[in-house]
Each structure stands twice: as C-alpha cells, then as structure tokens.
C-alpha cells in the first residue's frame, strides 16, 4: 500500500456532497433497471464535480460497455487499465493488489479474461481477490466465489474446486450463519439503515443466497461428475431436483448418460424448456438439447439420426452467433460481439461430435473435415488423433466386408471367344496397397494414408503421458482403457504402414501389439497377421510362417469380437472366420516359400469350413488357382475359376 494513494482515497471519502450521493443513488437505480443511457447521464454529472474519482471513472466505463451491448471489449479493456493506472494499480501484477478497495478492478478484469477463455490467468487473478473474500461486500463476495469455482472447474482442478465449495458453503450459506453474516451489518448497524430497508434487504438476500446456494451445488455436481463420483452426484442433485431449472436438468441428464441410462436421459432432455436467450446468456438450450440427443442416438447405434441432429445444432449455433455479431471490427479484434459471446462458441465441440458420428455412419471424408477442426483445439488428445487416422483408413478401405463377399466378381473378365478365349484375372484382388508417387506433402491434412501415419505418430507420443487427455470428452476413471487404446493405435499404425508399403514400420507397430499381454484378443490376432505380412514383404517367409503357426490369438477371441460387434459390423465376426483368415495368410506364406502342397492342404481345410457357412476370404479361390497353375494343372485351374466365378463361364 503506497502512501501516494491516500490523497485520492481520502478525497473520495471526505468530500462527498449530498448532491453527489443522491446522483450516485439514482445512477445505481438506473443501472439496476438497465437504463444505461440515463445512468450514464447521472455519472457524467458526478464526474463534473469529481473528475478524478476512480470509482466514478470505472463505473462510467462499465456502463458505457453495457450500453454498447458489451460489444466494445477493446475499449473497455483500455478504460479499465487507464483507471487502474490512476490508482497506481497494474492489473498484470497481482502483488499491486493490497487494498480491499481495489478488488473490484481485479474482479472485473478476471471476468473479462474468463470470457476470453484465458482461464489460467483469470484464475491467478481471482485467487488473489479471493484472499480478501471476508472483507468484500456480500454481493461481490458471492460473485468472486462463483468465479473462482468456475475457473477451477474450467482448468480441471476438480478436487480443489470441491474443497473451495465446501469452505464457501460453510462461510456463506450454512443457513443461520449465512443470514447472520450477510445481514450482520444491518442488524447491528442501526444508525445507518432504517428498519424497513432492513427487512426488505433480508428478503432479497434470501432469494439471492438461495440462488447462490443452488449454483454452488451445481458446480459441485460438475466436479463430482468429472471425478466419476456418480453416487455423490445424485445425492447432491436430489437436493435441488425440485427446482427444475435447466442447468440442473442438463446435469441430471448427463449423469444418466454417463451411467449408460440412455432412455432416462432422453426423457429428461425432452422436459427441458427451450428458451432462446442466446444474446443474453450466450447459450441456446435447443442447440445443447440437439447435441445431447445426438449423443444418445449415437450410442443407440443410429448414426444417421445422430449426425443429422448435431448438424441441426451446428446450423443453429452458427446462426445464433451471426445474429449477434455486429460488423464493427474496426475498433479491435475483440469488438463486434458481446463479451459473453466471444468465448461462448461451442462449435469445436459440436464439430467433434459431428465427426465421431459421421465416422460411425461410414462417411470418413466428411468426418475427417470435422475432426481436423476439432484437433486444432484438442491437439493433446491421442484418441482424437486415432479417430483421424481411422478416417484415413476408412477412406482407403471402407470395411472388410468385400473380402468375404463371394458374390462380387473377383476376376477381371473374359476376352475373345472360341480358340482365342482368354480369362483375365485381376492383378490385385483389391487395391490395398498404395505406393504414393504424388509430390504432395504428407502433412497436408487430408484423409490420405500418409497423413494418417502422422496422426498415428502423434497418438503414440501422446499416449505415453501418464494421464491421457480425453478432452473434450468425459474422462473415465480407470486405465484398462489405456491398454485398449494402445492396441487400437498400434494396429491402425501397422495397417497404414503396410498399405504404404513400409514393412519395417509395420513390423515395429505390430511387435508392440504382440509384446503386451494386456492387449485385446482382436488386436493380438491383428498383430500376428500384420507382423506376418510385414515379414513376407521383407522376404522373410520362414519367420512369417512360424509366427502364423504359433498364433493362438483366436483361441478365445469370440467374446471380444462380440464386444466390437455391438458398435460396428466388423468382419471376421466369428472365431472360425478369423481362423480362416489366419490360415489363408499362412497358405500364402507357404506358397511363396514354395510349399505348394502344404498350402493346398490348408486351402482345402478353409474350403471345408466355407461349406459349414463360415465366412472365408474370397482370396482362397485365386490362391488355389495360382497354386494349380504353378503345379502345371491348367485344366483344374480353369475348372476352378468357372465353378466359382459365373463371369468366367459365360
């Protein structure tokens, strides 16, 4: 506290005339009625007699800001800093806050930073203000409490937030105590307040305190939910359930959603009233409801409904934002939009959801465009990078279905007739491998395998962190999850590397899969397949054969395949079918080594299982044909094609 400051403080304290006091009261009254224009007039009259009173200057800046519809953030920021200079405060330096009188500047600046999403800085600032909490006027104290809790939640400090809430409740809302503290001055300060004012104030305070109490509980529920303490959440929610306000209803809905009670969640969403006060609150319940309904559709395996619902939400959200934006960019980058709208955009999260649902609706390219937007913000999330890689993979190959579909032609066709008749085979059954020869950088975001491999690299690096950043999604409690995610990332990496013709990298990824003993059976199975193929491409058929022969990955693969089938129709869908794939690849490896007879034996086994209605790879016919040709049994080969491919009979 500097000595220099005192003349100012003293002046403002001593020289207040009755007229000024009246004007100030009128200004406050107009402010509370939101008549900013006339409020401003009063303030200007006060300013004439008190040109250096920082409180007058601050209020003038605030009212001007409100009058512009909070659209002139740049100007407000400048005025705030100027006023602070006058009282020798530096908003950037927290140590300069020593006098409780100056808290209001810091609070306002913290609010300003909060709306611009500078959460860490705002938190440091409000922490400083909070150290004066007991000395603050009660309505400001409440606001400071709410902001400090909010900022703890926004910076993921949930345990601290819970402690704060408990402390704040004990100090400000614990029934008798609270009313005593809050009305304390009124009860004792007889000379200042008249009796009537006292009771009126008490009634107002009760309403305000109750709202404050409810807000604190809502914040507590949020933090508890993030910490996965669901039982505590529902206990807390029960205490405020009957209020039926939208914030609480959304929270109840989320709890049901996280507990997997999707029906209940949907029922709650339907009850939430649709209000359109975006311009005031920066929030539009119908956008949120549409988004949340989409989440429920997504997990009900209705991807199309899901993405249309989110799409609706996005369109409306964008429209809301355009509607409140004024074209006055000249005044600075923060002007033109109301302050509370600047940080209120939830487009990134909506795009994230849209991307996930499009991916599950098997629209990988569209999904990619959405997720690439989300990853600009959430670039520390390894799951998001994996999703991007999945988009790249799905763009390259939609699914495994075609590999088991005997109805699709798998020869090129027939040329000529009579003695010139030729059967033309396909040079590649499916164009699985893609050697890039385009001079386009792999780092350009597009759903290419090259970009996918970079995504996987990011995911691999990020999953090595101790805690996995799942934002914007909810973070689950435990990490058996992490092993599963690891398996997904490594197998996607191996797949992409194989498709790009990079067996060394593919082998590295697949060996990671084989090393771990906590890996999902499906991934283990894929690890064997990919590793064997990488070995074949590196011309090591013996090692590949050993690997496939020893593989017992599909022993109890069935339950884990079923787990997968709940969200996606993945093939192979049965243990026998998985076995057929593995045997087929073994047959290829044997063929390449020259063990044509053994390979032929295996093919026969696979073929027998096809008769038992097991899905087997269509590749077996072509391999059988190949083996017969190599053995010089041209006639058998041709019969084989004709039997299995109606195209060749013609």
């Amino acid at each position, binding site marked *: 506290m500097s000595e220099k400051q005192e003349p100012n403080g003293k002046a403002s304290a001593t020289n*207040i005339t009755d007229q000024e006091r009246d004007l100030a009261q009128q200004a406050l009254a107009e402010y509370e009625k939101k008549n900013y224009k006339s409020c401003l007039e009063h303030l200007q009259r006060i300013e004439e007699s008190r040109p250096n009173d920082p409180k007058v200057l601050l209020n003038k800046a605030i009212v001007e800001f409100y009058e512009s519809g909070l659209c002139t953030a740049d100007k407000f920021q400048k005025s705030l800093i100027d006023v602070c200079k006058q009282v020798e405060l530096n908003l950037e330096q927290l140590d300069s806050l020593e006098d409780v009188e100056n808290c209001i500047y810091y609070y306002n600046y913290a609010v300003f930073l909060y709306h611009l999403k500078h959460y860490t800085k705002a938190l440091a600032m409000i922490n400083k203000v909070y150290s004066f909490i007991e000395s603050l006027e009660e309505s400001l104290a409440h606001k400071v409490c709410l902001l400090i809790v909010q900022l703890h939640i926004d910076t993921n400090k949930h345990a601290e937030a819970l402690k704060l809430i408990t402390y704040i409740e004990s100090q400000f809302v614990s029934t008798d105590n609270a009313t005593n503290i809050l009305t304390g001055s009124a009860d004792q300060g007889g000379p*200042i307040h008249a009796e009537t004012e006292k009771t009126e104030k008490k009634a107002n305070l009760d309403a305000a305190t109750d709202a404050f109490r409810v807000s604190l509980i809502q914040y507590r529920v949020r933090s508890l939910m993030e910490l996965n303490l669901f039982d505590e959440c529902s206990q807390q929610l029960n205490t405020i359930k009957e209020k039926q306000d939208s914030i609480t209803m959304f929270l109840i809905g989320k709890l049901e959603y996280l507990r997997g009670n999707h029906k209940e969640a949907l029922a709650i969403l339907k009850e939430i009233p649709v209000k359109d006060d975006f311009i005031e609150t920066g929030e539009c319940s119908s956008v949120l409801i549409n988004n949340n309904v989409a989440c429920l559709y997504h997990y009900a395996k209705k991807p199309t409904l899901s993405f249309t619902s989110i799409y609706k939400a996005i369109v409306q959200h964008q429209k809301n934002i355009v509607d409140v934006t004024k074209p006055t960019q000249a005044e600075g980058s923060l002007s033109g939009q109301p302050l509370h709208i600047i940080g209120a955009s939830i487009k990134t999260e909506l795009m994230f959801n849209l991307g996930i649902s499009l991916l599950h609706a098997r629209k990988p390219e569209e999904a990619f465009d959405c997720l690439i937007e989300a990853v600009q913000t959430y670039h520390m999330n390894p799951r998001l990078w994996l999703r991007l890689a999945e988009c790249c993979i799905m763009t390259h190959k939609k699914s495994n279905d075609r590999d088991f579909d005997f109805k699709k032609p798998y020869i090129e066709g027939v040329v000529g007739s009579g003695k010139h008749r030729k059967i033309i085979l396909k040079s590649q059954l499916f164009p699985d491998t893609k050697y890039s020869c385009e001079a386009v950088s792999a780092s350009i975001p597009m759903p290419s395998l090259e970009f996918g491999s970079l995504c996987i690299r990011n995911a691999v690096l990020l999953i090595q962190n101790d805690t996995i950043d799942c934002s914007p999604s909810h973070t689950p409690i435990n990490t058996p999850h992490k092993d599963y995610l690891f398996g997904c990332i490594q197998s996607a990496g191996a797949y992409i590397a194989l498709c790009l013709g990079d067996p060394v990298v593919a082998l590295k990824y697949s060996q990671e899969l084989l090393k771990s003993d906590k890996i999902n059976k499906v991934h283990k199975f*894929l690890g064997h397949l990919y590793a064997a193929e990488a070995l074949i491409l590196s011309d090591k058929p013996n090692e590949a054969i050993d690997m496939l022969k020893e593989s017992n990955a599909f022993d109890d693969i069935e339950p884990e395949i079923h787990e997968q089938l709940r969200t996606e129709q993945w093939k192979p869908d049965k243990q026998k079918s998985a076995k057929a794939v593995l045997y087929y690849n073994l047959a290829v490896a044997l063929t390449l080594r020259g063990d044509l007879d053994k390979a032929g034996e295996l093919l026969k086994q696979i073929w027998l299982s096809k008769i038992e209605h097991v899905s087997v790879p269509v590749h077996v016919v072509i391999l059988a044909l190949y083996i017969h040709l*190599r053995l010089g049994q041209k006639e058998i080969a041709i019969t084989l094609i004709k039997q299995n491919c109606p195209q060749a009979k013609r």
Partner: protein
Amino acid sequence: MYLSVNQLSTLMSILSEETVENQTLEYLVSQLHQFFKREDNFKVGCTLLMLIQHSDFLLNQTQKFAAIILCYELYRNEPIATNPLAPIFMHLLHKKVGKNEYVGDLPVLTMPVKIFLSNLIMSQNSKELLRKSAKQVLTARSDPSKPVVNTATILNTIKERRKNLPRTAKSSLPVIIPDPQKTESKEGAKQVLEMLISGPKSYVSHNFKPEMMRLVPPLYVCKEEMVWMNMSSRSNHQIMYDKTMCVSTSAATEARELMTKALKTPLTLQQQQHLLAELGNDPKLVYHIGLTPCKLPDLVENNPLIAIEVLLKLMQSHCITDYFSVLVNMEMSLHSMEVVNRLTTTVELPTEFVHLYISNCIVACETIKDQYMQNRLVRLVCVFLQSLIRNKIINVQELFIEVQAFCIDFIQIREASALFRLLKQLETGDTCSIGNIAAAAGITPSTIAAAKDKDKEKIVPKEK
C-alpha cells in the same frame, strides 16, 4: 496403352508368315530395330513373350522361332544374364529350370533349333548365323558334328540373379489365362491381340501373385466419447458496477482517519474507545480502514491495545498469517510482547509462530549491547516465557534446549534462575508443583503489567 495399334500391327507384319518364310533373320532384326526404339524394348519383349506362350496367335512354327530370335536380339548388346527375357531361353533349352514354374504353352524346340539357339547365345559373333532365314534353320537336318552348346554356366548365373530377388517379386504370373474352346471364334487373332495389348487396360503388362489378406482394424469403441453439453452458466459472471461509489459513510471515514492517526501516535483514551466502537459496529469495517500487514508494527508500537483488537477481528481473514509473520518478525519490544502475550491467551496461535517469536526474543537478548537494557529485556522474556508455560500455551519440551541455554546464560538474573528451576521441575515430571514454583517466583498476571510500567520509558524509545 502398352503398344499402340500401329506398333502392334508393325510387329505382327514383321512376324507375318510371308516375311518370315522369305526373309533372313538378319532382315527381321533390322526391321525390328528400325521400327522400335530402345525404350520400347521391354514392351515389345513382353508382347513377343505372350505370342510365344499362347498357341493361338502365331500358328506357324517358323513364326514362333522368329519371335524367339527377336526376343534375344532385343537385348543382344547386354550380357545374357541381365536380359529380362533370359529365363525363357533357359526354359526352351533345358525344359525344367525350376520346380513348379508356370511357363504357359511354350513350344517344344526341335534339335536343330536348339543347336542354333545355343550357338546364338554362346557365340561372340552371331551375325553369321542370322544370315539364314527362319525356315532354313527349321528345316536344317540335325548335324551330329554340331551338338547343343553347353549353356549351363549361363543358366547358373541367371539362377543366381533370381535367387537375390525377393520371393514376392518372382512369384508373379500373367493375368491372361488361355481358355481355348472348340466353338468358332467370333474375333480374329488381331482383334483379340489389340484388346489384350493396345486396349485401355493392356492386360499383357499385368501379373498377379499370392496376396495376404489385410484386415482393416476395427473402430475404436468408447462409451463416453461423444461430448454431452451442459449449460455453462457463463452469465453468472458479469462485469460488476462498483456500488460503493460515493457512498462511503461518515463512520467509515472517521475510522479510517483514526487508524491513520493511530499509526503515527498513541490515541487518546476517548479516540481509542471511539475507534473500537466503530469496529465493533461493523464487522467488515476492519478491512476497510487501510491497515495492511506492513503497517502493523507502527500500530503495535503506538497503540498496542487497538492492535490486539484489530488482530482479533482479522482472525477469520485469509491474510491473518501475513499479519502474524510481520508481528513475530518485528523488532522486539515490550509492546510487541504484550500483543503476542494477549493473543496467545485469547486465541490459538499456530505453534510455529509462537516458537519463532520466542527464538527471536532469545536472539534479541543475546545480541543487545547495553548491559542495563539487556537485563531488562531478559527479565521480560523470562516472565513472558513463564506465563506461556504456566498457561500451557507452549509445550516446553519442544524448545527445551534453547530455553535452558538461555537460562544458563543469564542465571545471575533472578527471573532467569526461577525459569531454570521451573524447567528442571518440568523435566522431573513434577507438574503439580508448577503453579507453586510460579507463585514462589512471584509471577502473577500483574507482574507483566508491573514490569511494563517500570520499563516503559527505557525500552520504548527505539533507535531508528
């Protein structure tokens, strides 16, 4: 397009029955080099190979033979081992080159042809040989004096080269599988050839090999991935108007002024009572009178009674520890000791503050130069310590060594030796007699007050 339709018909006309029958091989070769550029060699070679391997395009043995010679001539300037078509000659000469190799419908060569071909491959100067026409070679009688030249060395080099190729590279087969039917052909050979070679897909250039089946990994399954959105209650946080503008009350102003005064000079009794009354009226006022921790020492020195009251009111504040640490670290004086003593009896102070204060006291006693002042100070500290012990505010065990050393240092002072006896008493566990000892030493609450009054004028004036 592999070879254009024109190129194909040029090639076919070089190999036409008529040309082959009537012209020397040399002529055919020169025609080939005339119409085809070097860079087309491989394409021409593959086309020739297909013509040789399929039985339905070159009907005549002479034509097939000519095609074989052209295959060789395409790469004559290179060592035979690097000729990409070399394996075909080995097949023709040796029948079985490797186990299970697909060869298509390769013609079987007669002895004279084999001899000719082996001579051609092995001889340095082949010009002589090519002067013959294809027909002459085919119809030549087998001459026992000219046996088939041994090509085994070449065969080995070719095998050696193939060995170094990866298996995936050498396992390919052509995609065109002949399937001749007895029915009449609707198209001529030329038409079919055009489809195979000059068509948009030019099948002749393609081959197939065993492919591994590469499964796409399943999508990542995650229960909570979709983001559920709550209302964020952003509107809880709004820029706030300063309602205290121009409303500061006279009471607050007065209190503030009195406090400013109290930092500089002792207040009159009336002023003290007024300030304390104002503070009592409004519990929050204490925060608004401009008393920051760094100003506390001035208040303590000038108005210890007010300092005590203010500190008691600030107990709920977050900043109270700041005030404490200023208090224990300020220069030791009668007033500060009085304040600390009062605080210890009224509220529970953090132990570390009391300990810190005591050790500061002891250090102050030890470092003071003036003998008389030192005696005064030591007596005060002893009385203070006894009071703390008697009121069980400190557990003397925790400070035993320091306090004992202090007593021994100043044992000639009456209060110090009394304190020392008290310590010994405590050490032997005779707790019940503490009160007696204290009483014996003449320590009562009034002692401190008495000591204070006596020493006031001597201790308070500090050197600044």
